[in-house]
Each structure stands twice: as structure tokens, then as C-alpha cells.
């Protein structure tokens, strides 16, 4: 807006200089003109206009500057207060002395001009004028009387006589010219001093002629070119014939030189003095106006200069303040525009250098921080993806971090306990007790360690392989202890199963071979000697051989079970109806003593994809186990239910009313050769687990709240190869009602 225009003006000192020169020039010329200089007098009006315009321009500039300052105040811009203060000081410095000078100049002017005039001089001049006037009038009156006397004689004479007499009279009376004029204005006779041209206008062309023709004589003074003041006297010739028009006699007489000069001087002096007195008022006004204009211009210029210089002084400070504010707000990119080559310019240059360096340092720090954070996130991601649990501790045993796997393995959330000592956490989370003890034991010792630790979680025993390393304190880190542990329960279990499978196979191989010859030999002995031996011996032989044959059969049965366990044939998957299969198997146990088998089959269980023979074996093993347990516990009922869990998991649940499973046996219940019964191979549940594992399913056992145990089998409907099965199985297990 107006700002941009003003800013352009602020480019340097030259516009101000030009303006000052113009102002000073016009004021000087105005002053010269007011003092009556001929040249400037002609330009007075224009000079006056230029000055007036300059004043208007100054007022406009001041108004713009003032409104800008007001706006700055309103917006609370930086530098507004300083500008106001500077402007005020400048204005006071300019206006106060100028006002004093103005006041005294004005009073001197008034008194000075008035002192030029004096009433005494005025009355003296008036008297001098009066005196001159009466002297002149007397002189002219004398001439008129002479002319009248001369004219009285003329009418009676002839024109020739008149001409001669006029010539003589002119010469005698010192007249310059005597002429006789007809009433029509036509000159009859004219006589003048030799070698003079026409002296004055012909009388007929003046209004005197009219006056004279009315009958009254005339005498008057008038200037004649090159000859100074003249007395013109005009008289009417007396008439003989009243009918004839009057002739007129005119005479031009030179004024007495001394008298003429004095009269002229007196008149000039009087006129000049009168004019001076008359112009005293306007002159004073004119001086006052000029003085006022000059002062007004000076003051206005001073005010505007105050704004101008205050702005120029404050501008770099404002820029600096804005820059400082920006830096304080953290904006180091803010560079200040270069200023003029002085101390403030150096200051701004230094400020720019400083912000540049600060910005560079900050950028570097930021970059390093970003890198460190990226690295941290990377390591955290790696740690969280690790299947091994990782826990870091301070040297005093306080928890620092624990990764996802650690929490998963331990089955607790460690995040809320950050910073607490392991010993304290142990009180709240008993599951970590063995781990805490191991750490405590090792804290005092130097160096890394590695050991197996057993923990109890949800009633299950978990075997952890735990390693500990000491992190030395280095620059930026305090050091500490790192615990890394893996859940090796499943691994150990698998190893155990594999070992048992190997044992079973060896046993079967080594034992099965001699069994048949033993049985055959026993039968052969019985067949050959039973009839030949005396009855007592025959009875013993019969009993012994029968025992051998029966025990060999029993061993064969046992071996068959071993082989079944060790050599479960590969799956022959087929579509089958689980409910039908369950129903068939349960039918076989309908008459199992006094135990009632209660079957609940869900109608929504779909056709599943599984090995029919193995599944049958599974159901047999489970039912047999349940019936035996119920019988042992004195119960009466076994309950078998099928259901669909989720979209594609078939579930078989077998509840018994036996004594339940002892807490410490939960981990080993599915191990081979584990049995609590007097009779039994200890392979029933191991085989069941193996079949379920083959089908990529899950088997678990738990005690019922009142009495007995529950076995739960979950099998994928679409077969063992279905994806993401284990996770869904876990979900379904967790979502199952107790």
C-alpha cells in the first residue's frame, strides 16, 4: 500500500536531499520576492504555490507516517515504542527552539515595521503638499489672468494682427505655444518656440475643450513629453457677435524649473509615503506569512524527518528483534537481510553467522538422533521377532526391558514392572521365581553362565534354557545383565518321544523273535509229555505250559502295542463322519460293566478329513482310559461329546468320574509307559497324543471341578495340512467354556 511507496523512498538519502533543496530554494525565493526583488516578484504567485504544495505534501507524508506508527502500535509490532520515543525527541528538539525564534521574530517584525512610520513625517508631508499646491495654484492663476487680459484685446483684431500679436506675446511671456482654435476644434493660428515639435495633445482632443466651450476658463498642470510639467491655460475669446461660436485661446507655459522639480518631488514623496503607510498592514502580513510559511515548513520537515530517521534507525533493530524472536522460537533458518556497512550491519552479519552455525549444529544433532532412534527401533523389532525371550537387568537386578517372546514364554506381562527389582517382582509373579533365584545367585559372580531352569506355569512344567551375559558399562550405556532363554519343553518332549519310539522298536525287534519259539516250545512240550506223565506231573506241566503260552500271548499283545506306538503307519486320509465313528466305537462299550456311557453328538459337526482307523484307535484309547479311571474312582458315568469349535475345528471331549489327575503328573500324562494303573502298558494316552499330533491336532487334559478328569481332542476339519491351525487351535482352546 502506502508502505511500499514509502519503502521505495527509503532507498537512501537522495530523495530527502532533493526535497530539502527544493523546500529551501522555494522558501529563499519567496523571501526574496517578499522583499520586492523585481525578478522574483514576477514569480511570487508560483513560488507561493510551490511552498503551499510542499507544505501539503509534507502534511500528507506526516499523516502517512503517523498512521503507520499507530498501526504498528496497534499490532504491537517490534520497534513501535522506540520509533515513537525517537519521533517525540526529534520533534521536541526541532519545534521548541523554532517556536521561540518564531515568537521573537514576530514581535520584532511588528515593532520594527511600525517604527518606520511617524505621524510627524506624515503631517509634514501633507503640509508640504498643501504648500506646493497653493504655490502652483497661484502661479497658474497668474498665467490665467495674463492670458485672459491678452485675450480680451484679440477679438477686435484681424487674423494677421492676431498672429503677429500672439507671436510677440508668446515671446514676451515665455510661453511654449500659443494657439487659437475654432469652436469646431480646427486650429486657426499656432505659434510655438522654434525647433520644438508638437507640445502636448491638441486641446480639441481633450475634455478641457468641452469645459471651456461651456464658457469657463481652464488652467491645469500636465506633463508633456520630454519637457516635464507644463501649465496649460485655456481661455474663451470674448465675442462681438453673440451668435457666433466662441474661439478659444490656448497657451502652454513651461513651469518654472525649480518649482516644477520641487512640486514633483513633494508629490512623489507624499505618494510614496502614503503608499508605504497604506501598505504597512499588507507588508507586515506578507512578512508574517513568509516567516510562518518558512517556519511551518521547517517544523513539518523536522517532524517528517523525525519519522524518517526514526524509521531508518529502528528498521535494522526491528529486523534484529524479529530474527532473535525467530531464533528463540527455534527457527534457525531465518536469515536477516544484509544492512548498510556500519556497526549494525556487522551485528546483523554476526547474527546471521551465529544462526547458520546453530542451525548446522542442530541439524547434525537431529540427524544423529534420528539414526540412533532408527537403530533402536531396528533392534527392538529384531528382539520382538526373536523366539527367544530376552530380559535386560541393571547390575542391581532391576528390570530394564523384556521382549515379547520373554513375556510369552513366562505367560506374564513384564512391562508394568520396569525398574523394579526381580526379587520384588517375584512376589507378585511367582512364575519368575526360579529365574529370579538364578539371577540372584549369579549376580555376585563374574562372567557369563548358562543353565536349565524349570518353571511352573498354569500348572505345567516348562523347561527353559537360560543364558546370561554381562554387558560392560561403556560410553552412553550403564551396562547390565542380559538374560536370554528358550522354552525347550517341547524339544525335550520330542526328544523323549523319539527315544521312546526307538526303545519300543528295539524291544519289539529283540523280544518278538524269541517269543514264538518259546511259545512253540512250550506247546510242543505239552503236546508230547502231557499224556505220558503221571497225573500230578501232567497237571503241573499243563499249568506251566498254559502259563507260558498265556504270558507269551500277553507279551505279544504288549509288543503289538509297542509296535503300534513306534510304528504308527502313515495317515490314510479320507472323508468320514465323526459322529458315526464315535457312535460305532461307543456301541462296543455299551456293556462295559456298570459304567454308563453317555454320548452327546452335535449335529453341526461336518464331515472331517482324517484317518479312520487311527481315529477309531484314538477313541478306543480315550474311552478305555475313561472307563478304567471311572471304575477306579468308583464313578458310574463316562460322558463323550462332539462339537464344532469355530468354523473348522472338530472337538471331542471325554469326561470321566475317576480320581482326577494329580497336579504333578500333568506334564507326563502323555508320556509313554506312564500309568497309574496296576495293569496297562502306559501307552494308551501316548498313542492317543501321537495320533492327534499326526493329525496336526491338539490334546490336553484337565481336572473337572467336582470329580474326574477331562480330555479334550481338537482336530482340524480339513485335515492336518490346513494352514494357521495351531494359532486358531489356541484361540479356540482359550475361548472354550470351562
Amino acid at each position, binding site marked *: 500500500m502506502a508502505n511500499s511507496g514509502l519503502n521505495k523512498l527509503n532507498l537512501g538519502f537522495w530523495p530527502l536531499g532533493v526535497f530539502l533543496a527544493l523546500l529551501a530554494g522555494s522558501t529563499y525565493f519567496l523571501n526574496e520576492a517578499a522583499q520586492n526583488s523585481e525578478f522574483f516578484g514576477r514569480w511570487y*504567485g508560483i513560488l507561493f*504555490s510551490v511552498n503551499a504544495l510542499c507544505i501539503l505534501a509534507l502534511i500528507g507524508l506526516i499523516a502517512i507516517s503517523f498512521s503507520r506508527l499507530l498501526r504498528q502500535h496497534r499490532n504491537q509490532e517490534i520497534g513501535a515504542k522506540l520509533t515513537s520515543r525517537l519521533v517525540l525527541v526529534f520533534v521536541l528538539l526541532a519545534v521548541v527552539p523554532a517556536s521561540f525564534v518564531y515568537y521573537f521574530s514576530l514581535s520584532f517584525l511588528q515593532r520594527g515595521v511600525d517604527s518606520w512610520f511617524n505621524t510627524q513625517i506624515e503631517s509634514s508631508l501633507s503640509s508640504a503638499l498643501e504648500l506646493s499646491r497653493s504655490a502652483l495654484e497661484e502661479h497658474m492663476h497668474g498665467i490665467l489672468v495674463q492670458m485672459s487680459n491678452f485675450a480680451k484685446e484679440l477679438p477686435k483684431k484681424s487674423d494677421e494682427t492676431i498672429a503677429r500679436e500672439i507671436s510677440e506675446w508668446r515671446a514676451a511671456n515665455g510661453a511654449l505655444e500659443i494657439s487659437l482654435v475654432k469652436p469646431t476644434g480646427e486650429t486657426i493660428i499656432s505659434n510655438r518656440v522654434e525647433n520644438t515639435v508638437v507640445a502636448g*495633445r491638441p486641446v480639441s482632443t481633450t475634455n478641457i475643450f468641452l469645459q471651456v466651450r461651456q464658457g469657463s476658463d481652464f488652467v491645469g498642470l500636465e506633463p508633456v513629453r520630454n519637457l516635464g510639467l507644463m501649465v496649460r491655460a485655456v481661455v474663451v475669446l470674448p465675442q462681438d457677435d453673440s451668435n457666433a461660436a466662441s474661439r478659444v485661446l490656448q497657451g502652454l507655459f513651461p513651469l518654472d524649473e525649480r518649482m516644477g522639480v520641487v512640486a514633483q518631488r513633494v508629490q512623489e514623496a507624499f505618494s510614496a509615503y502614503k503608499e508605504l503607510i*497604506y501598505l504597512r498592514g*499588507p507588508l507586515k502580513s506578507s512578512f508574517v506569512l513568509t516567516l510562518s510559511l518558512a517556519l511551518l515548513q521547517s517544523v513539518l520537515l523536522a517532524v517528517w524527518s523525525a519519522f524518517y530517521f526514526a524509521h531508518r534507525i529502528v528498521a535494522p533493530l526491528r529486523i534484529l528483534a524479529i530474527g532473535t524472536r525467530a531464533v528463540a522460537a527455534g527457527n534457525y533458518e531465518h536469515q536477516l537481510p544484509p544492512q548498510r556497512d556500519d556497526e549494525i550491519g556487522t551485528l546483523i552479519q554476526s547474527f546471521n553467522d551465529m544462526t547458520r552455525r546453530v542451525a548446522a549444529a542442530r541439524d547434525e544433532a537431529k540427524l544423529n538422533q534420528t539414526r540412533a532412534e532408527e537403530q533402536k527401533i531396528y533392534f527392538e523389532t529384531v528382539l520382538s521377532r526373536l523366539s527367544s525371550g530376552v530380559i535386560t537387568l541393571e547390575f542391581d537386578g532391576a528390570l530394564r526391558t523384556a521382549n515379547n517372546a520373554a513375556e510369552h514364554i513366562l505367560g506374564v506381562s513384564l512391562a508394568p514392572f520396569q525398574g523394579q527389582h526381580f526379587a520384588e517382582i517375584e512376589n507378585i509373579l511367582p512364575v519368575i521365581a526360579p529365574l529370579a533365584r538364578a539371577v540372584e545367585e549369579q549376580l555376585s559372580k563374574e562372567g557369563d553362565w548358562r543353565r536349565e531352569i524349570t518353571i511352573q506355569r498354569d500348572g505345567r512344567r516348562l523347561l527353559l534354557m537360560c543364558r546370561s551375559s554381562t554387558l560392560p558399562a561403556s560410553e552412553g550405556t550403564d551396562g547390565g545383565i542380559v538374560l536370554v532363554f528358550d522354552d525347550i519343553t517341547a524339544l525335550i518332549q520330542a526328544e523323549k518321544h523319539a527315544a521312546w519310539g526307538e526303545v519300543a522298536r528295539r524291544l519289539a525287534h529283540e523280544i518278538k523273535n524269541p517269543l514264538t519259539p518259546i511259545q512253540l516250545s512250550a506247546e510242543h512240550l505239552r503236546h508230547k509229555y502231557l499224556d505220558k506223565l503221571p497225573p500230578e506231573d501232567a497237571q503241573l506241566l499243563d499249568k506251566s505250559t498254559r502259563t507260558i503260552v498265556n504270558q507269551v500271548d500277553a507279551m505279544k499283545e504288549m509288543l503289538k502295542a509297542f509296535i503300534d506306538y513306534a510304528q504308527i503307519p502313515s495317515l490314510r486320509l479320507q472323508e468320514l463322519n465323526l459322529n458315526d465313528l464315535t457312535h460305532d466305537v461307543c456301541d462296543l462299550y455299551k456293556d462295559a460293566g456298570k459304567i454308563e456311557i453317555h454320548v452327546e453328538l452335535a449335529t453341526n459337526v461336518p464331515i472331517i478329513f482324517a484317518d479312520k482307523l487311527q481315529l477309531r484307535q484314538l477313541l478306543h484309547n480315550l474311552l478305555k482310559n475313561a472307563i478304567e479311571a471311572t471304575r477306579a474312582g468308583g464313578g458310574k458315568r463316562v460322558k463323550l461329546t462332539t462339537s464344532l469349535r469355530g468354523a473348522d475345528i472338530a472337538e471331542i471331549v471325554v469326561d470321566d468320574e475317576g480320581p482326577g489327575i494329580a497336579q504333578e503328573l500333568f506334564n507326563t500324562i502323555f508320556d509313554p509307559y506312564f500309568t497309574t494303573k496296576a495293569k496297562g502298558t502306559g501307552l494308551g494316552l501316548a498313542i492317543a497324543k501321537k495320533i492327534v499330533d499326526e493329525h496336526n491336532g491338539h490334546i490336553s487334559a484337565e481336572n473337572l471341578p467336582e470329580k474326574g478328569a477331562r480330555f479334550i481332542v481338537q482336530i482340524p476339519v480339513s485335515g492336518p495340512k490346513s494352514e494357521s491351525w495351531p494359532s486358531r487351535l489356541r484361540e479356540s482352546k482359550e475361548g472354550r467354556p470351562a
Partner: protein
Amino acid sequence: MRCCRNTKRARFGALWLAAYLLFAPHWAAAAGVFVRTAETFLLEEVYRLNANVDFRLNSSVIEALHNGVTLPLNMEIEIARKRSYMWDETIATVSQQFLLAYEPLPRRYAVTNINNGSITFYSSLYDAIDAIGAIKNLRLIDAKALEPGSSYVGSIRSFLDIDRLPIALRMIAYANSNWRLGSEWYVWPIRD
């Protein structure tokens, strides 16, 4: 014609503006300068002007005159060729300048015609200003100078020339309406 007149007026325009800002304008109703008649006639192949200008001086001006101030009175006469498509073309300008002064010794008024240097005396002020206002037989322009077939108009105005007043009075005269005496332009046809 108009253009020249406008230029002259513009010259004073800024002046009037400044004066108006300082003093309130109050025109004297009766006083003023009025061109009553103006006409040309052809004599000896020269167009001549007869005109009558009525000067009505107000008391301020008369007071100044009686206090020794010489009054400069001007007459400006312009001859312009009429043009239908644009402003008129000024082909000649005639200026008549008079000085009116009071002589206290013989108690009379002296009228100086600056153009020819003649001084005429009058015993009354009214005779003097009537004499100034009565223009008779003033040679304006040769008939040959006018293009045949073109129309010409003359215009006349008369005014008190403030710029030739004494400097001390000039400032007052600029500001005071009593001193701004001047007629409107009076236009008459010279040749149709």
C-alpha cells in the same frame, strides 16, 4: 482559443487553491468588471474593435488607489478561427494595458496607456475608468490575415492585474476576493 485560455487559467489555478485554503471566499456582489458590448467593423481592410467595459471598483481598491497604489488594468482580446471538429484556433491576441493612478498634488487621476505611452488626466475617478473602458476604433487584425470561408470570433475580457500590484499588496490581493476583479470572456462574431 480555449486551450490558451485554459493554460492561463491553470497558471492561476494552484494560486487560487492555496488562497482558498487560507481565506474564506466572500465576493463583493456589486463590484466587478463587466464587458457590456463588443463589436468589430471593417475599415480600410482592417478589423477594428468598439467595446464598452464597465469597471466597478469596490471601496478596498479605491482606498488603495487614493493611498498611492497604482492600479494595473488589463484587457485581453483574442481572435479565433472556429473549427467544428476541435477547439478553436487562436490566431491573434491583442492586449491593452492601463495604469490608473491618483495624483494628490493636482487632485486628479492619471491614466497611462502602456501600449502607446500616453497619459491622460481626469478630475474624477469615474471619468478615468469610463475612458479606460471605452474602446474605440482599436485595430485588431488585417482582413487579409483571415482565411476566406472560415468563421471567426473575437473574445474580450478585462481584469485588475494582481501580478503587477506592489508585492506587499499582492499577497492580500491573492487571498482577498475584493481584489479579484475580472470579467468573464465576452465573445462576439467577427465574421460568419
